[in-house]
């Protein structure tokens, strides 16, 4: 039954990569939310033509917010059924579950 095994391994491999995304996503959001807006021209110091309109800033933040929510939702759908399997692996330390 090599075919079945191949399938299982692929799936657990995918799941681990999904866990990687779960770990990385907050860092990505931090960059997009915390770092990017600090690069925008600021009305307290800049010339008026280079100012960022507030609506642009709002659209940007809401878009990232929405994408982040969709991403975490999708991740939850992908890994929610496998939590128990993961926890019961013989060496259940996060490190060895890479």
């Amino acid at each position, binding site marked *: 039954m090599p075919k079945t095994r191949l399938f299982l391994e692929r799936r657990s491999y995918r799941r681990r990569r999904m*866990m990687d995304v*779960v*770990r990385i*996503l*907050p*860092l990505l*959001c*931090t960059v997009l*939310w*915390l*770092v990017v*807006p*600090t690069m*925008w*021209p*600021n*009305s*307290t110091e800049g010339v008026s033509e280079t*100012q*960022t*309109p*507030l*609506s*642009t*800033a*709002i659209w940007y*933040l*809401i878009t990232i*917010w*929405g994408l*982040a*929510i*969709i991403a*975490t*939702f999708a991740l*939850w759908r992908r*890994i*929610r059924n496998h*939590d128990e399997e993961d926890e019961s692996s013989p*060496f*259940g*330390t*996060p490190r*060895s579950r890479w």
Partner: protein
Amino acid sequence: MVTLNQLIGVCLVYVAGLFLVAFLAERTALRGRGGWLLRSPLVYTLSLSIYCTAWTFYGAVGYAARSGLEFVTIYLGPSLVMIGWWWVLRRLVRIGRAHRVTSVADLISARFGKSNLLAVMVTAMAVVGVTPYIALQLQSVTLSVAIFATPDLASGRGGQSTDNAAFWVAAGLAIFTLVFGTRNLNANERHHGVVIAVAVEAVVKLVALLAVGVFVVWGVAGGVSETVARIDASPIGTWQTSDGRWSALIVLSAAAFVCLPRMFQVMVVENDDERHLQIASWAFPLYLLAISLFVVPIAVIGLEVMPIGANPDLYVLTVPLSQGQNGLAMLAFLGGFSSATSMVIVATLALSTMMSNHIVMPLWLKLSPLGVQQSGDVRSVVIRARRLSIILIISLGYLYYRGSGGSGALAAIGLISFGGVAQFLPALLGGIFWRGATRTGAIAGLSIGFIVWMYTMLLPSFGPDGALPASVFEQGLFGWGLLRPEALFGITGLDATVHAVWWSLSLNTLLFFLVSIFSFPTPLERLQGAQFVNVFDHSSSSARGWSASEGGAEDLMIMSQRILGAPEAQAFFARQALQQGRVGAPPAPTPEFVQALERELAASVGAATANAMIGQIIGGQAISVEDLLAVADESAQILEYSSRLEVKSRQLTETAHELSRANKKLTQLSLQKDSFLSQISHELRTPMTSIRSFSEILRDMEGLSGSEKTRYASIIHSETIRLTRLLDDLLDLSVLENGQVSLNQQPVNLHTIIEQAVTTAKASSARQLEIHRRKRSEDVDLFTDGDRLAQVFINLVTNAIKYCDASVPVLNIAVRRQDNEVIVAFTDNGSGIPAEAESLVFEKFARLGRGDGDGAGLGLAICREIVTRLGGDITYVPQDIGGSFEVRMNCTTPEKQSQRLLPV
């Protein structure tokens, strides 16, 4: 216009509704029903929304009207924490569940060796930090009531008639919390009434804010694009947040989200199922997004339609009112009311647990002369302590509100409160990620962080000559310029909030780290540290620390009955006894049992108190070095186990390889054996056939002449000789191959052996062969079996005589020394051995197709066996003319030579 009486009526109905919902939820839970709703991820997520208080509901709009998009940082921080649930929250929730943690103070104290000093510090800091926040909620309710009470009141100043509102709201909240917050002592058991009421209020405030937002966008502004145009045209229409504030506020709100006692209460303590956390990881950011979606539109429209000087904190109310939308205004009021009440209820609950567990109970334990062993129900003491704490905290909030005169923008108070509780973060994160964090370090970090926060954030918020004299603002404390509260260490130009957050958190972290590094933890701290940091490896195992004598069981029973209640305690003891396999007897006070009991008690009175209580009965915690090592090295053991497994599996793989190699070899041997047998049969059959035929002729043929008879008989004779030789050779080879040969080793001279071999070979053959030798080089002494070596040489010389196809056959025997070896080369001038046959010449029955040889093809095979046995080597080396067999022998001392011999 809504009258004040109508408003109060609606409020009372709403509050009555909340009481009813809470009551129904408690009753349903008591009957063991409704778990699908009470324990659903939806309710969990909604209960998290107590993060959004009246500060959010009113204050966010005011904040946006003052400083644009900066308000959103307060929601981005928590969203980040939720999206990053895997890193921190998952760990916190697991620790909270594994150690039956009752509050953030309990967690920190339990981590650092169940230190009550730390618990008291954290509790005190939380009370100081959260009290202004509770005052803020009361203030927001008062302000919103005032809007309805005095019709001209866009200014938002509360009249005399509404001052009492704060009191009545405080009293109502106190009653609600008393009724539904202290029903059960075990803080880990969910307060279903409270949780469900909070969830309902979460829906109410979201719906109210969304309704106002929808009204403003589509009712007042006239659509999305018009709203966007108005936003960009408004005074806050450009991005004006300073970079420092933007980052600092996101970090601050993220820290506060984890550390706020009320957030810890709903997120960790009341968590029912770890999987709910992942659902909340997308659901709660969604809630926050929905809450902040319409904040800027409401602020912008408010700035447009409301007169200058109107309090922007109340735009959510005053904008619908100014447009004549009384119903919507009422809904908005309920939204604000519910945000305020739910926050106060949960915050009070969390703080009262901390106060009663970490301040009142330890005091009572110390002051009560008989300790915990006196008779009577301690539960009533704990519950009374908790109720007292609730009243105390709400009173503090009320007094703060009266004392501060309801001044200050909402957002400012909120941020100050955030800054206070964020000081727990280094100790909290350090405690759950770093085993090196120590109690002393945590105390040092918390103290400096709290002091800096007080000095740079809380006290200056009262203004010059408020809490600090104006001279301190200008010249610094004691006249030291370096200690000015808004420019510590002479660094000016920072925004006051950024300044305070930066200095308090960085000094806190630095000191926590440095002191931790240079202090040494007690055994209990190290034990707890290992358990907290490795919570995912340890959650099932419990640290053993108690060594109780049999006599302690009775006392333990008495004490737990008084804390857990008689039926609960008896059930717990019976369960434990059953686990120990004792029926009808109390459980033996094994370390495991005492540990379980301590956890059970900790869920009611906190880790430090439970530890102290059990300590009073059992008399000191005995943690042996072995226990410590056992726990600390558990991960090491797992690692070792896995590496052992790895070695085993590698060994298995190797064995499998060896087996398959052996199998291949066996198969080859079997094939060789088969081919050997068939060769033998073939070799035997040929002479046998001729012997049989000629003997039959001799027997049956009449009238054979004498010469014929002689000829046939001599054929038979020569065939038998050939057979005998073949059998001799086979026997010889078999003996050699099986290693059964006994070698007669002695000192011999190579010259003698070659001489003997040449003579013998020449004598047995009719063919002439010219042999060239250099006798002087042959004078080499060897320690070997001379007869066997001579046999090899005879074979080689005979082969040359037989097979050399030159017209004048010449054999050159050359001896040369190489290092420790002597090489004897037999080179003839024939055509040599064809390249394709070279690899075969030493195999059994390998006869080259030419010639008339009578050998069986075993000669060279025997030679190779003999030379190998003698510790040497024989090879065929092709030459320009002819071929050369080289015999390589070691010319060593007798001792060494005997070592080199292959085992016999």
